[in-house]
């Protein structure tokens, strides 16, 4: 009797663990399928003429350079606006805040911002920055709208990074007579810097791939923006419009591949920084 029970137990265990393996396999397979499909179909497109050329005609022949420039511009500007505010906000939450109503309101607001659908953020940017303040469709309006989307992401990763710095390092600093700000700025933030950088880079990947926010704040005009008040069309918007209208599919594949490569690049950089840091500490 007992041995059969033991057998049943072993069989159930084997089957269930097999199912878990399958789930993990399916996840990896989903990623693999997407990557392989986008790479195989897009790789032929990636010529210098495509990357550095301008699109022309109704069929968007030629290259996608202005959309690349617009994407990099709006991402950089959004990161410049968001990073200092988000890092200092995280410093407050991790180092200064005392649990109370104010802090729990801030956390609730940050969680809410993090879960705002990007289309809502797009309409918000349109209502406030584009029409309300009168910036028009512009890189700066898009960057500001994006910054609300990125803020909670960077706050969360930075706060985790700061909390991961061991307590005794702070005690050492206080013991030497340092003030709180001296401790935070010279001891805590430098130790947390690699992980903060990782979070910021991942957030940049998010900004570069965002469609719904930028389409309503930067518009769809093909333009290589120079001033922050210039409009432009980013790569995700370009891809979306081409795919929706079914024009120039090869260019759509090329754009999709470049976007994926960009995100991969951000991810690998973040990973490299994280790993180098771990080696230094270990």
């Amino acid at each position, binding site marked *: 009797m007992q041995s059969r029970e033991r057998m049943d137990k072993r069989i159930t265990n084997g089957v269930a663990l097999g199912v878990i393996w399958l789930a993990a396999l399916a996840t990896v397979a989903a990623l693999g399928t997407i990557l392989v499909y986008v790479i195989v179909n897009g790789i032929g497109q990636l010529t210098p003429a495509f990357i550095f050329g301008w699109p022309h005609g109704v069929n968007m022949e030629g290259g996608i350079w202005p959309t690349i420039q617009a994407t990099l511009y709006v991402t950089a500007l959004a990161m410049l606006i968001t990073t200092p505010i988000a890092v200092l906000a995280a410093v*407050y939450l991790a180092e200064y805040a005392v649990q109370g109503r104010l802090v729990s309101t801030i956390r609730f607001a940050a969680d809410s911002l993090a879960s705002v659908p990007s289309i809502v953020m797009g309409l918000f940017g349109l*209502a406030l920055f584009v029409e309300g303040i009168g910036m028009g469709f512009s890189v700066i309006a898009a960057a500001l709208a994006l910054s609300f989307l990125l803020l909670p992401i960077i706050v969360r990763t930075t706060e985790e990074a700061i909390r991961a710095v061991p307590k005794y390092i702070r005690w050492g600093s206080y013991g030497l007579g340092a003030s709180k700000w001296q401790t935070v700025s010279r001891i805590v933030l430098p130790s947390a810097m690699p992980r903060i950088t990782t979070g910021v880079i991942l957030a940049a990947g998010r900004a570069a791939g965002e469609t719904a926010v930028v389409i309503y704040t930067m518009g769809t005009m093909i333009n290589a923006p120079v001033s922050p008040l210039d409009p432009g069309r980013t790569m995700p918007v370009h891809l979306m419009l081409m795919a929706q209208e079914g024009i120039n599919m090869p260019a759509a594949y090329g754009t999709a591949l470049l976007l994926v490569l960009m995100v991969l690049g951000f991810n690998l950089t973040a990973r490299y920084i994280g790993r180098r840091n771990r080696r230094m500490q270990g």
Partner: protein
Amino acid sequence: MADNKQAQAPEPDVTPYASDSSLSTISKATYFKEAALRNLFLLCACVAVAGVGLIFLFVGLKGWPIFEKVGVWQFLTGATWYPTKGSFGILPLIVNSLLAMAGALVLGAPLAIGTAVFLSEVASPRLRELVRPAVELLAGIPSVVYGFFGLVLLRPIIARLFGGLGFGLFTVWLILAVMILPTIAALTEDALRSVPEGIREASYAMGATKWQTIWRVLLPAAKIGIIDAIILGMGRAIGETMAVVMVAGNARVIPDGIFKPFLTLTTVIVMDMPYASGDHRTALFGVAIILFIISMLFVASIRVISRFGKEMG
């Protein structure tokens, strides 16, 4: 300014004892500088609160006239969305959004939880180093790329297998399931990891198999975290726009099958915004504020559940 300079000088007159309890013994300049910085950081943290307020205010202001004109209840429960003819009922859009979310959850959540259990309990460290980056990359792929992938690869396959054009709920489910997977998997893994090692050891010591430990001990112990993860995944699914718009087909009806095109709360904004004007445009902002409220309700329910969980545990 003079005070500031003094505070930054290498050797201040007064020796600062910088523990919180003895702030009174540090120099005045240092004290003010510290207090000013503290308030600056607090201000930065309050930007998040301001953001939520601004979104409510500006999207709300633009959308408010439609609620006044049609009535909130009529807006939410009206059965026809035909804005160019003056009917502004978003019930079909709400139903479609919920249908899309539910299917994505049924397909995606088990896969995500399975992957999380694999990462936290089953995989060897080396395998984990392979699978976890895959999950992170899935989270990083832009939604427009998911949509494009669904449009050019999945849609034709589904059209061939089941007939029709391949647009519709079924295609949306598949895409959304993959998109919410990394969110649910990452948070579930965190929840499983925060279960103390001793609990696992106790379970094994009593002769439980790995699966019995996972099913009877770890998953119940991580229950609250997993529910949070699922709710966040639901928020992702309902708010997703660009991927859905590319594979949903965007017809203005409640679909009479899972292979028929349909329109949701998010995709109606993308489809109508380019040409909408007047009340129609106002109504789209009304839809946006409803979406915002839905996403905040998800966040609030996570809070309530974790408080409830703390009281129980």
